[in-house]
């Protein structure tokens, strides 16, 4: 579904990715782990071309999405980001109402309006189990919600445009342990319908939720395989050192 082929990325003169190849399995959770600065967030941000917003960034290699290179010259960018959504490290709902946050995507893409839009918003909030809490508070400002609710709202916002892939960049790092557990349960629920790629510095989290795990170090994908195998029988010595806590 998504496949990186020999992907290299530079920020100015600094090379952040040294030729990464990995294939993302549909309707599964793929975790990317590694110490700070290893390039895991950078890799994630290549899948929806968010790195394009960074001045001085340059990419070589390709990422195939349904067989098409998203870095190809004739690729439809807004279409890509509609189908490959992203959840950020800090919840970033817009300073609008709950309803307007979720309705944002459908509105800009002209997907729904009126009753249809209200139905889309309801379903998106149900998908993240927010509807029961917020169904009667759709006019509340999104910034008044708790951090966990805000992060769920950001996921609802994506779900409303019916993407195929959810990219999550350390989605729980701003949340407390209870909220983290709730979001992890939500991810397991969401993977029935979506392909999920999550970046996390929390190895336990990767071990708990993911089906596949990639370990990155200094811009290289050192090891990539089924989570079970990576955590119990790593092939690379550096992976073993990292997961046993010898550095990072």
């Amino acid at each position, binding site marked *: 579904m998504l496949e990186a082929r020999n992907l290299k990325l530079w920020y100015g003169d600094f090379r952040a990715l040294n030729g990464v190849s990995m294939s993302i399995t549909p309707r599964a959770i793929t975790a990317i782990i590694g110490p700070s600065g290893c390039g895991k967030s950078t890799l994630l941000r290549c899948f929806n071309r968010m790195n394009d917003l960074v001045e001085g960034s340059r990419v070589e290699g390709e990422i195939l999405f349904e067989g098409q290179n998203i870095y190809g010259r004739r690729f439809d960018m*807004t279409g890509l980001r*509609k189908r490959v959504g992203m959840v950020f490290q800090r919840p970033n709902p817009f300073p609008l109402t709950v309803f307007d946050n979720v309705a944002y995507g459908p509105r800009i893409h002209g997907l729904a309006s009126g009753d249809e839009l209200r139905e889309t918003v309801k379903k998106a909030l149900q998908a993240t189990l927010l509807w029961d809490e917020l169904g009667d508070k759709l006019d509340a400002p999104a910034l008044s919600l708790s951090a966990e609710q805000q992060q769920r709202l950001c996921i609802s916002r994506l779900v409303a445009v019916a993407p195929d892939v959810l990219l999550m960049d350390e989605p729980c790092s701003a949340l407390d342990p209870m909220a983290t557990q709730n979001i992890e349960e939500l991810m397991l629920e969401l993977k029935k319908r979506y392909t999920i790629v999550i970046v996390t510095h929390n190895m336990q989290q990767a071990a708990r939720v993911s089906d596949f795990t990639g370990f990155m170090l200094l811009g290289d994908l050192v090891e990539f395989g089924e989570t079970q195998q990576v955590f119990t029988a790593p092939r690379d010595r550096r992976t073993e050192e990292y997961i046993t806590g010898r550095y990072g």
Partner: protein
Amino acid sequence: MKQDNAIRLSLLGLAMSAVTALAVITTFILKEGVPVIFRYGLGAFLFGTEWKPTAEPPIFGVFAMIAGSFAVTAGALAIGVPVGLGSAIFLSEFAPKKVAIVLKPALELLAGIPSVVFGFMGMLVLLPFIRVHLGGPGASVLGGSAILGIMILPTVISISVDALRSVPRSYREGSFALGATGWQTTWRVTLPAARGGLVAAVILGMGRAVGETMAVIMVTGNTVQIPHSPLSPVRTLTSNIALEMSYASGEHREALFATGVILFVIIMALNTVANTVARLGKRA
């Protein structure tokens, strides 16, 4: 420790000097201007349309000047706000870094041009143009509005740019990550998030337009009349004071101070509204 105290006290003194100046000016204007308003009658002063300070008995009605200030300011906003907001949006959201680096200082330079130079350019270039192509005497509401519209640009642009730049990057990223275009992001996320600061920018620009004197005297013709078209000459509150203070005495002089009181109230009100809106915007 001792030295610290000395520095703190002298800084306190310096800070107080600005406040003291404000207090002195306020007291002085009010003391000179308020009595005549009540002696003459608040209604007659504010809503009288005749201004004949040297007649016997003199007539002090500032309504035509209030209307003049209002017309010229409204016109200045009609010209300056779209241009100013547009420039600010371009500078903060769309301009490549290299372009912004050149443009921003250039705009700040615009603020450094003395107002008499704006007036001079208006007299030499703008007024003849209006007279020849649009009719009327040239010196007019339109002339004043156009010159003031340009003069408020630095205020409107720099405050708007600050407001837009203070919108967290994460809002824009969230929008882009949903497949929004640059313009959709600006229109639906960034502008609403910055609206408090943008309103403050407009109001402070308005304050600058209301208070400007020299350039306005040079391009509006200064006739005391309620303007009936954009091409009629008008006199503003500020022009009234500047034009007559040099020869006024007695009650006439007091009436000019009273004009100042009205200006003072208008500017204070605008600043209060600007501050309140900016604060509410930040909280929302």
